[in-house]
């Protein structure tokens, strides 16, 4: 036996594991990218980025798949007249917003979204939003948040947006019965499943945030219990806690195990009888398990490497490792929020290589020498890796697909099995 006493509980997983922190080139999106799903989620909201041509080009390029749908976002492009002070930026913004709302009378909620240039020139969008909110009161609410790359990475844009929306939530009476608030954007169909399942457990007072319409904002108060559907919502949680709500710590609802533990956290907080919980959840678990089993053979033992992207990396790695038997070579995440991801860290196999931040060139070196079977990475890296014979999974698809919950667990596994399946099918094809 080893003389050194290990104080950590034996099954603490990665709770105290060392993390490789890197600061170099980060091959990640900025928070503006969140607009791509947020503008579809909140159907009467419009997102006006106040930024540069680069911002407009980014959203357009990142949203390439959706370019032919009617957008509820736009960019107010700052030009040199604004910078030189020849035009008053605030007057210009008022003009642009006026034109926009004239054309879109259906918009009930307008977000002015800050960008790198607007942050650097210190354009006060908070004041601008307040001013415009006064002008359009009774018709369109005007709020602001920053999706700038200097302040937010990819999914943090949603965090900033939701945190800005929290003060708008009506107050729940302090004597109100406890209610459950599911926080984070998930596919509508998944949200409906969650609401249905919680109600079946007897948790009647349950709502989702963000809502599908800005006129349906859920109330929040000291008796509100928050359950996060997404791991990247640190600021939103803080803002909700400031309104008195209590965060329920749990792993995230990815995979059968994650979804069970996530729902269990709510069931515990709402004193759902064990039998009732089992009764509701057991058939769903069974369905999820049998769905996942179909992909176990394809994925078990396969070596996976995660580049940082959406902050979903830890929950995904936990699912793939524990439910599909994949080997984790490195789990990179842009930002590791220890508190929100505490339960996930406990579940990760001890010894998992974790990295936070990025130096993309060094990470590519590590990736290559680790010899993965599959790499999860962004769109800028995927084809270059594929051309070197390395199978990849686009990480952005994990943000755009319904992957949460019991009934999507198998779909999630399939997203990882598909590139491997494809590689096998094309084995005879020349490179």
């Amino acid at each position, binding site marked *: 036996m080893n003389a050194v006493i290990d104080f950590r509980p034996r099954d603490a997983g990665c709770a105290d594991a060392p993390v490789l922190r890197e600061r170099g*080139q980060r091959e990640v999106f*900025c928070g503006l990218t969140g607009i791509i799903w947020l503008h579809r989620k909140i159907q009467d909201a419009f997102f006006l980025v106040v930024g540069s041509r680069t911002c407009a080009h980014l959203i357009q*390029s*990142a949203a390439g798949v959706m370019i032919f749908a009617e957008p509820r976002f736009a960019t107010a492009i700052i030009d040199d007249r604004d910078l030189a002070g020849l035009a008053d930026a605030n007057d210009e913004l008022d003009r642009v917003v006026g034109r926009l709302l004239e054309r879109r*009378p259906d918009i009930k909620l307008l977000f002015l979204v800050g960008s790198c*240039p607007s942050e650097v020139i210190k354009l006060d969008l908070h004041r601008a939003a307040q001013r415009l909110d006064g002008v359009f009161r009774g018709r369109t609410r005007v709020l602001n948040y920053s999706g700038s*790359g*200097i302040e937010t990475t990819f999914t943090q844009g949603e965090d900033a947006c939701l945190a800005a929306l929290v003060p708008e939530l009506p107050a729940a009476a302090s004597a109100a019965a406890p209610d459950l608030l599911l926080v984070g954007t998930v596919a509508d169909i998944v949200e409906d499943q969650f609401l249905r399942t919680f109600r079946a457990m007897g948790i009647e007072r349950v709502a989702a945030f963000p809502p599908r319409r800005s006129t349906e904002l859920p109330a929040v108060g000291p008796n509100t219990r928050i359950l996060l559907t997404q791991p990247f919502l640190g600021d939103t949680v803080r803002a909700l806690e400031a309104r008195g709500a209590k965060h329920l710590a749990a792993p995230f609802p990815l995979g059968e195990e994650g979804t069970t533990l996530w729902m269990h956290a709510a069931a515990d907080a709402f004193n759902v009888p064990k039998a009732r919980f089992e009764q509701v959840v057991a058939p769903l678990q069974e369905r999820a398990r049998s769905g996942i089993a179909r992909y176990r053979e394809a994925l078990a033992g396969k070596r996976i490497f995660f580049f940082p992207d959406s902050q979903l990396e830890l929950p995904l790695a936990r699912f793939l490792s524990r439910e599909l038997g994949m080997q984790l070579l490195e789990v990179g995440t842009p930002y590791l929020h220890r508190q929100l991801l505490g339960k996930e860290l406990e579940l990760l196999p001890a010894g998992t290589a974790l990295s936070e931040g990025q130096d993309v060139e060094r990470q590519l070196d590590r990736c290559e020498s680790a010899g993965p079977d599959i790499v999860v990475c962004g769109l800028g890296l*995927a084809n270059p890796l594929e051309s070197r014979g390395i199978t990849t999974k686009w990480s952005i698809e994990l943000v755009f697909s319904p992957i949460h919950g019991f009934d999507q667990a198998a779909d999630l596994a399939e997203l990882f099995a598909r590139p491997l399946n494809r590689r096998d099918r094309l084995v005879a094809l020349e490179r």
Partner: protein
Amino acid sequence: MQLTLWTYEGPPHVGAMRVATALEDVHYVLHAPQGDTYADLLFTMIERLPKRPPVTYTTFQARDLGGDTAELFKNAAREAHERFKPAAMMVGASCTAELIQDDPGGLAAALDLPIPVVALELPSYQKKENWGAAETFYQMVRGLAGPHAPAPGTPRPPRVAGAQPSCNILGPTALGFRHRDDVREIRGLLESIGVEVRVVAPQGATAADLARLGEADFNVVLYPETAGSTANWLQRNFGQQYTRTIPIGAIATREFIAEVADLAGIDPERAQAAGRSRAPWYSRSVDSTYLTGKRVFVFGDGTHAVAAARVAAEEFGFTVVGIGTYSREFAREVRAAADKYGVEPLITDDYLEVEARVAELQPELVLGTQMERHIAKRLGVPCAVISAPVHVQDFPARYAPQMGFEGANVLFDTWVHPLMMGLEEHLLGMFREDFEFHDGAAASHLGHGSSRPQPPEAISPIAMGEAAAAAAGLATSAPAGEPVAGELVWAADAQKELGKIPFFVRGKARRNTEAYASQHGVALITVETLYEAKAHYGR
């Protein structure tokens, strides 16, 4: 501040990336905040390049702004040099880094790297992608070929007797609209008439190739948007003439050959025998009669728009009803073309304005960019894409140039494809009540690219001003008998008769009828008014 839904061009540093990615052994160190790396996916996903663009970003964040972003840049440049060992380096700033004024050029000079370093000044708040590409190419050529230029005023020595004439091909970049195939086509054409192609740049050129650009006898400029300023500089400094004809279409290809033969001093008649297109015969074939006078709206970058309008008018027999460009740098050329066709030029990068113009003009075919493809789809007008901005579909697996003899064939196929075929058009017109000829039914030969008018509800007010929507005849959802445009009222039977007109000309019929009614003080549009208007306007 400009309200922008979709943008035709990216920022100028994306233009610089297109040049860096096209070159073989050059690295671009870009001072830029986290997030600007999105631009990599343009190359790896849209163009499907199997390698990352040769670009290192500093990706600074808010916490770096308080510290030393200049040091961050120097480290990035130093490490990029060590890792990638480029033959030359470009350094510059994206829009945000431009604001913090770290002077990448000065910082890079201080590193004293053992390679040429070209500092790019690309004003992000004034200029756009194509300008950025042109400026970058020009600065690279000036920086690398400049030291080899003869003393000012030195006349270019005549070509050695018996030596093969030679040229460079200038302009093709990464993410260019069909540049890959245009280069192959034009290179083949030049070689087949006995002209040696020394360097193609920037696409595929090394830093050393740029340095020896002055050696060729003359330059062939395929894309003035990216190569115009470079060709001018080479002419001034090396006495190299350059071609002005853009070989898009069968006629322009002939003119291009004549121009090259002249510059190269070769027999023009022999050169013209180098090849031919099938397209001119196809266009003369009786089957193409139905193309006569089709009303076409053209929009794109300056060069492609002007070329497409000419091909449309002179090779297809179409009527150009509108022409425009998003590149202000080429407004003059587009205005001149508009004059030639007697139409109003549209110089704008505002997608909404373009949409309103298309709606107002009701063309039968749109030749535009991916943006106009979107507009045309919504308005139910056939469309073919002729210009950047590019989409993954603009990088077909097959060989599909726009230029040269084969390019003319490609244009014929791709422009005719979205249109209703001759006899089919007649049948649809004659037997409107055939249950399989309903408006939703696509023409038989059309695949996924078929255009069907979307229900008017699908067109939102932001995409289209109400006036434009009315002009486009999209107010058809209004029930018969109710006022539609101003005082005009459609009688139920007239409305029904209008419905018998095939959808692809119905908008025009509605517009003409209403215009006729207003002019003649007719308040209630009847079946008779419809036919009187038809007689008045002709087809």
